[in-house]
């Protein structure tokens, strides 16, 4: 094993600890959801989707904000580290967005009788998902040049502007999306609160862990590209590679 492989496979103890903590939190969260929280009176057992759906949306916000801030910092500083964080945030955020857009319609099938409706929150969530899909597609076309990186960073920063629109769309425009954890309506039954809080904690840890892991992978990829370019410029890759 050479120096570079050693560096890549030596995960910091904090990273390993966070991974273990995330697994532990997932077990705790599932316990609260399925063995502690009561079944909801009107929707029945399908309401339990809520305990992963809402924290997924929250994790999506975290990841997209991280990506947007890192994009802005990359545009300012032109540091590859920020670019790696921006890519990681966009990809992880898109994964959580996908979870939101799958679990939401499954819940809606029972609650509304249809998988999809053009509710303001659903529509704006789909829109931000499309923005960051564009970001990821732009960055996945082989080796991104400086122009692609700058354009993707600007796109990532623009996505930040949509996050408050999604969050306040429920209050601003009338729609069908529930507003259980806002100050409107009756709120949650006290026995349901631990399940939701444990879901938030678990998804925060999962989001942090995945962004960290993806950032490390992207930094390794950047080193590979840099090394390839340096080697090619030095004429070391002319034959047999």
């Amino acid at each position: 094993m050479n120096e570079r492989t050693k560096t890549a496979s030596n995960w910091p103890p904090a990273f390993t600890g966070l991974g273990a903590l995330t697994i532990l939190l997932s077990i705790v969260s599932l316990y609260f959801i399925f063995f502690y929280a009561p079944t909801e009176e009107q929707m029945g057992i399908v309401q339990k989707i809520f305990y992963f759906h809402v924290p997924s949306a929250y994790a999506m916000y975290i990841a997209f904000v991280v990506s947007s801030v890192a994009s802005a910092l990359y545009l300012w500083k032109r540091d590859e580290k920020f670019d790696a964080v921006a890519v990681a945030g966009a990809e992880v955020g898109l994964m959580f967005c996908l979870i939101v857009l799958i679990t939401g319609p499954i819940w809606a099938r029972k609650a509304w009788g249809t998988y999809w409706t053009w509710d303001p929150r659903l529509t704006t969530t789909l829109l931000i998902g499309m923005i960051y899909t564009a970001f990821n597609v732009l960055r996945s076309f082989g080796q991104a040049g400086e122009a692609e990186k700058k354009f993707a960073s600007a796109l990532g920063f623009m996505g930040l502007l949509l996050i408050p629109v999604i969050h306040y769309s429920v209050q601003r425009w009338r729609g069908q999306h529930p507003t259980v954890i806002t100050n409107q309506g009756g709120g949650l039954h006290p026995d349901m609160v631990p399940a939701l809080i444990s879901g938030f904690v678990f998804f925060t840890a999962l989001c942090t862990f995945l962004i960290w892991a993806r950032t490390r992978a992207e930094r390794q990829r950047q080193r590979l590209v840099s090394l390839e370019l340096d080697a090619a410029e030095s004429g070391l890759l002319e034959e047999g590679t």
Partner: protein
Amino acid sequence: MKRLIALIACTFVLGAHAFAFTTTASADEVEPPRATSVAESRATEFRAVSGGQGEDVPGGGLLIAAYASVLVIVLGYVVYLGRLTTGTNRDLDRLQSTIDNKKPAFRDSARGDDGV
């Protein structure tokens, strides 16, 4: 740099105004009587149930589908990350060994790790 700071400042100012507008607008609005659901507001007829009453949409299946989707997506992404990392490291090893064979001194100049 000044332009970027100005852009960020404008964004936050606009965001704050938008937030204030939405909260004051929602507070000032006179709430119309809330229809409890779309189904209730559109109901025009009531019929007595005949026979046993059951759910037309099975909740258990939907719940399993939702949690299975989350599991598949998260595990799929973790596997993708693992393959990406392994593949990149393998390419780095291959490139490094090629460079080492041709020019050992090149490795020292190219090596770098920021500890992320």
